[in-house]
């Protein structure tokens, strides 16, 4: 291979960074300028700054309701998916039984399943159960996708822990559950945190189910609420972009904060130990 010139790497990184960061910057900038300026000749720096869009987002659009909904739904999904998923993953990581490989691929397949194909049947089921436009009506469908994902990720983490630790615990007098609780869980905190964040992101960003299974603004989540901002005759770009910023910033900060762990988490288990 030809040798890379020293200047190539920084330039390539710079281009990539610009490509990734520019839309974010443009969103932030556009959410901070008056509506009129949005349609004038574009300029890189804002000519005038206003918080009008944010004000109307919370005062007129009552944007804190979808935020609350998203927090509840994503939080509950994360809680249950990680709770159930960690137990499943532990069993799959440690126990020997016939068909384990098949089961694992099946679990992965479920989390890859195209969501759109089960929207209609799920809608009918949820309607029968009276769960349309409720929190459980979103949390349950989310769990069907999120749990397999958490199981898959956590199996990787648990497999990395030396089995001798649990064996020592079992000989010391701890049962399976006890050694899971006392030994495995405390040692898996990084893995579990990573899994929880990824699950939370999945539920926070989810759109199709949230759109299909909610009816009014009372139970709509953030992505749905933003999508429904557009009226029949006009698109309130300023408010949409302000909503996007509000929905993205906390999540982006969360990921930035944990990014080291997430990267380690996603690649761990990829290499056979």
């Amino acid at each position: 291979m030809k040798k890379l010139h020293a200047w190539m790497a920084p330039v390539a990184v710079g281009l990539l960074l610009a490509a990734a960061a520019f839309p974010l910057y443009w969103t932030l900038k556009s959410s901070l300028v008056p509506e009129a300026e949005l349609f004038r000749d574009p300029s890189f720096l804002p000519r005038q700054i206003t918080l009008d869009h944010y004000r109307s987002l919370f005062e007129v659009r009552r944007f804190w309701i979808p935020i609350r909904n998203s927090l509840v739904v994503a939080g509950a999904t994360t809680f249950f998916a990680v709770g159930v998923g960690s137990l499943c993953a532990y069993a799959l990581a440690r126990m020997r039984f016939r068909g384990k490989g098949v089961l694992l691929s099946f679990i992965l397949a479920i989390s890859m399943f195209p969501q759109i194909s089960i929207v209609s049947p799920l809608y009918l089921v949820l309607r029968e159960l009276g769960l349309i436009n409720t929190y459980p009506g979103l949390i349950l469908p989310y769990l069907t996708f999120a749990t397999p994902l958490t199981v898959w990720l956590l199996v990787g983490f648990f497999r990395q822990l030396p089995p001798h630790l649990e064996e020592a615990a079992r000989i010391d007098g701890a049962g399976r559950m006890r050694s899971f609780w006392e030994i495995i869980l405390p040692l898996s905190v990084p893995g579990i945190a990573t899994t929880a964040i990824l699950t939370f992101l999945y539920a926070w960003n989810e759109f199709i189910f949230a759109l299909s299974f909610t009816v009014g603004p009372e139970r709509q989540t953030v992505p749905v609420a933003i999508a429904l901002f557009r009226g029949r005759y006009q698109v309130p770009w300023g408010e949409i972009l302000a909503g996007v910023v509000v929905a993205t910033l906390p999540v982006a900060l969360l990921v930035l904060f944990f990014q080291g762990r997430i990267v380690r988490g996603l690649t761990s288990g990829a290499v056979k130990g």
Partner: protein
Amino acid sequence: MARLRYERVDKRFSADAVAMDGVSLEIEDGEFMVFVGPSGSGKSTFLRVMAGLDAPTGGRIFIDDEDLTDAEPKDRDLAMVFQAYALYPHKTVRDNLEFGLRMRGMAADERRERVERIARTLDIGGLLDRKPAQLSGGQRQRVALGRALVREPRAFLLDEPLSNLDPALRLHARTELARLHRSLEATFLYVTHDQEEAMTLGDRVAVLRKGRIEQVASPMELYRRPATRFVGEFIGSPSMNLYRCRVVRERGVRLETAALRLQLDEAAPSGLEDEVWLGVRPHDVERVDAETSGEEGRARAGSEADAEGTVDLVEPRGSDLLVRVRLDAKSDRTQETDGDRLAIVLPPEPRVEEGERIAVRFPRSRLHYFDPNDETRMDQ
């Protein structure tokens, strides 16, 4: 304390991965039993099956005559020390030691009292509030031992507990372990691949090979009367010299290889057929030409010698020399084989030089014979 018993125990991981093959063995109360064998001999599995970490595929496990084959590890009241120590990395030394007691529901002040007593015994009292990552290898090993001791279990299972220590520390820890066993009078099951460790520690030593016990006996018995060729070769350092010999019956009984000619006569073992494995330990081989000089002396030495050869390599070992000899082939073969090699341990004086001629004799009373087919010991 406890008597442990394996009864026709099998452990197969798959059709050709057999870790235990019909093992029956009883370990007496207070006995120090060592399992020794090369890697792949299944020795760790012997402990894991006793501990309940692996379920046997056949046979039963008894502890004090109680059938505990299907019991959970926690219900067996055994303690185990792992090769990699397996200390709980997120717990302090104190919590590591206390864990087993807490699991068994012991009251806090009693736990504290016991942990501190054991910590004093093992000289780790100053480390109680540290995490395992802050300890040296030797300290970790002590904590691992302490975690087993503090429980006062029915028996101790130790899986190569010294193999991660550096050599100087290992010898020290070995002595400590022997002393500990004597003072506790507890049953110890100890796994190692190091035959010297096995010999020095064990009341009895079981030599394992491919999931079977080749021989179980006291260390001295193993050394003096190995039951199979494998045991003969595995026990003792340097390894026993082994030769596959033809049995020639003309004017008495003689064993022959390309390089050896050994007149046995009445010293021959009973039941000899056409071939036999001959074993002789490097320590037992005698040099017959050391003091002789001149043509006459050399001729006399030649008539006494069972083999002659050239010194290939001298390895000084401080108290003695390990001398590797290439024997002269008596037939016209040109290709060198293992049958031409001989290891001898000689005193450091007189000096032996590489390339020197040497004549040796095998004392008949110290020879070992093994059946050429099943490789079991044949007696005189």
